[in-house]
C-alpha cells in the first residue's frame, strides 16, 4: 500500500572500498553497509551527516555513478544499473564545461538525449529563466560568480525534467548570503512542480529549512534518526528562531554527537 508511493527505494545496499595499507596488507573499508531507505514521490528529503559517513556515496549510487557490491536500488519501479533519464544530478562543484556558454551548459543533458538544437536551446533558456539567469545565457562559466555557476548547474538538471533530482551538497561551497538566496529559489521551484528531491548537506539548518523528511546518517550508511514531522510549509526565515525549529535542531545535533 505504501509501495505505490515509493519513488526511490534503497534496499540493503552495500559498498566497500579496498584500502591498500602498507606491507601488502589490505583493508576493506565499508562506506555503505546494508543501507535501506525509501523516498516517496514528490518528497523533498535531506540526508545529513558528518564528512565521510557515506552520504555522497549513496547519492552517487542512486545516480548510477557508483556500482554497488550488494543490494539494489529501485527508482520509479526500475532497478538502477547506470545513469538514467529519470534522474538528474546537481554536483557540489557545479562542473560546468568551461568552454560552453551558460545556455549550452544548461542544454547539455538535452543534447545527450538527442533533442534538436532549437528545442533544447528553448528548453535550456526556460530553465535558466527559472533560476533567474535568463539574462546571462551567453556568459562563459568563468565570467559568472560561484552562485551563478551553481544555478546553471541546477538549470542543467531541471532542463531534462527528471522525476528525481539528486543534489550533492550543491550550496556547500557558497557564502552564507548566496546560499540563502539559492535555498529560497530552490524551494520556490520545487513548490511549482514537486519533483522528488534527494538533498545531501552537512548543514542541519539547511536541511530543516528545505525538507519534508531528514535522514541523519552516522557512518557507513547507518541511519540513526529519521525526522518526518517538520514545520508546515510555506516556511519563513523567521521560523529559524522558533521554539520548534530550535528543538528539532537540538534533536539532530544530539543524534549526531
Amino acid at each position: 500500500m505504501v509501495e505505490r508511493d515509493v519513488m526511490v527505494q534503497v534496499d540493503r545496499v552495500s559498498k566497500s572500498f579496498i584500502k591498500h595499507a602498507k606491507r601488502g596488507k589490505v583493508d576493506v573499508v565499508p562506506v555503505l553497509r546494508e543501507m535501506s531507505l525509501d523516498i516517496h514521490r514528490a518528497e523533498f528529503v535531506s540526508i545529513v551527516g558528518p564528512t565521510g559517513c557515506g552520504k555522497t556515496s549513496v547519492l552517487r549510487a542512486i545516480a548510477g555513478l557508483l556500482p554497488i557490491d550488494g543490494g539494489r536500488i529501485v527508482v520509479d519501479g526500475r532497478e538502477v544499473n547506470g545513469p538514467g533519464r529519470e534522474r538528474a544530478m546537481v554536483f557540489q562543484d557545479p562542473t560546468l564545461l568551461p568552454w560552453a556558454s551558460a545556455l549550452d551548459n544548461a542544454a547539455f543533458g538535452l543534447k545527450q538525449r538527442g533533442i534538436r538544437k532549437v528545442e533544447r536551446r528553448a528548453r535550456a533558456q526556460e530553465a535558466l529563466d527559472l533560476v533567474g539567469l535568463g539574462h546571462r545565457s551567453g556568459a562563459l562559466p568563468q565570467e559568472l560568480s560561484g552562485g551563478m555557476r551553481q544555478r546553471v548547474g541546477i538549470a542543467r538538471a531541471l532542463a531534462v525534467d527528471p522525476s528525481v533530482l539528486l543534489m550533492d551538497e550543491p550550496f556547500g561551497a557558497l557564502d552564507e548570503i548566496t546560499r540563502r538566496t539559492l535555498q529560497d529559489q530552490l524551494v520556490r521551484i520545487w513548490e511549482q512542480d514537486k519533483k522528488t528531491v534527494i538533498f545531501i548537506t552537512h548543514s542541519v539548518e539547511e536541511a530543516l529549512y528545505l525538507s519534508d523528511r531528514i535522514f541523519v546518517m552516522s557512518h557507513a550508511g547507518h541511519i540513526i534518526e529519521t525526522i518526518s514531522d517538520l514545520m508546515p510549509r510555506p516556511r519563513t526565515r523567521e521560523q529559524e528562531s522558533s521554539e520548534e525549529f530550535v528543538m528539532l535542531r537540538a534533536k539532530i545535533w544530539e543524534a549526531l554527537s
Partner: protein
Amino acid sequence: MEAMTASDAQTAKRSAPSLTSRDERLVRDWKRGRRRNRIAAIGLPLAIAIGFVSYWQYATTHRSNASVLIPTFTDFVRATWKLLGLGDFWHAVWISESALLTAFGMAVAIGIPFGIYVGRHRTLDGLTSGYLDIAVVTPTAVFMPLIIVFLGPTYWARVTVIFIFAFAYIVLPCRVASSTVSGDLVDMAHSYGAKKTAVWRDVIVPASVPGIFAGLRQGVAHAFTGMFLIELTFLAVGLGYLIVGYEEAFDPAYVFGVSLIIVVQAAVCMSVFQYVENRLSAQWRSAGRK
C-alpha cells in the same frame, strides 16, 4: 538497522551473502587485479623488447639485399663489448668529454646563479626573457659555424659550442623556480629580521633547489647534444671522429655501439638529476610554493 522499511520484509527473503564473504571476494578480486597489473607492468615492455630484438636479428640475418648496412643484433652486442675494452675508445671518450665537463661546469657555474637572480628581478627578467624564449625554440646549432669561424678548430671552440647549447636550459628552470618562491615565505623571513643576504641564503636558494636539478638535467642533455653535433660536423675529434671512421670503414656495428654507450652515459646523468629533482619537488610541493 533502525531504518527498517516496508519493503525490507519482502527482500529479507532473498539470500544476501554475509558481509564477511563479500569482503573476502572483494579482497580476492582486488589482489588478482593487482597481480595481473604487476605481471603486465614487467611482461609487456619485456615482450616488446624481446620481439624487437628477435625481429632485428631475424631481418638482418635473413636479408636478401646484402648492401643493407644494418648490423645483426649479436654483432652489435659483440662490438659494444669490444669497445668497452678498447683503449682507443676510452681515449676518444676522454677527448670528447673533457670538453663536455669543462663547458658544462662553466654553464652550471654561471647559469644557476644567473637564473636564480633573474627570477627574482622583475626588470632583468623582462629584458632577458625574449632571448630565453627564442633560445628554446631555435636550434642552437645554427650558431655553431660562427663559433668555428671565430675560434678555429680548437678545444675552446668545442667548449664554447657545448656551453651555448647547455646555458639557456640551465637558466630557465632556475628562473622559474626562484620566481615562484612564495612572497609570503620571503615576508616571513623579513618579519623575523632576516637581512637581504640571509633571505637569499636561507629562503630563495634552498626553495629553488628542485629547479636547479631540473636545469642540470636539461643542461646535461643539451651539452651532450652539442658535443656530438660539433664533433660530427665541423670538428671531427674524439667520439665524433670515431663514429665517422667506423661509418667510412663500413663498420655499422661499432657506430651502434658507440652511440649506445653514450646514450647510456647521458641517460644515467639525466636520471640521477631527475631522481633528485623528483624527490625534492615532492617534498617542496607541500610548502613554500605559490
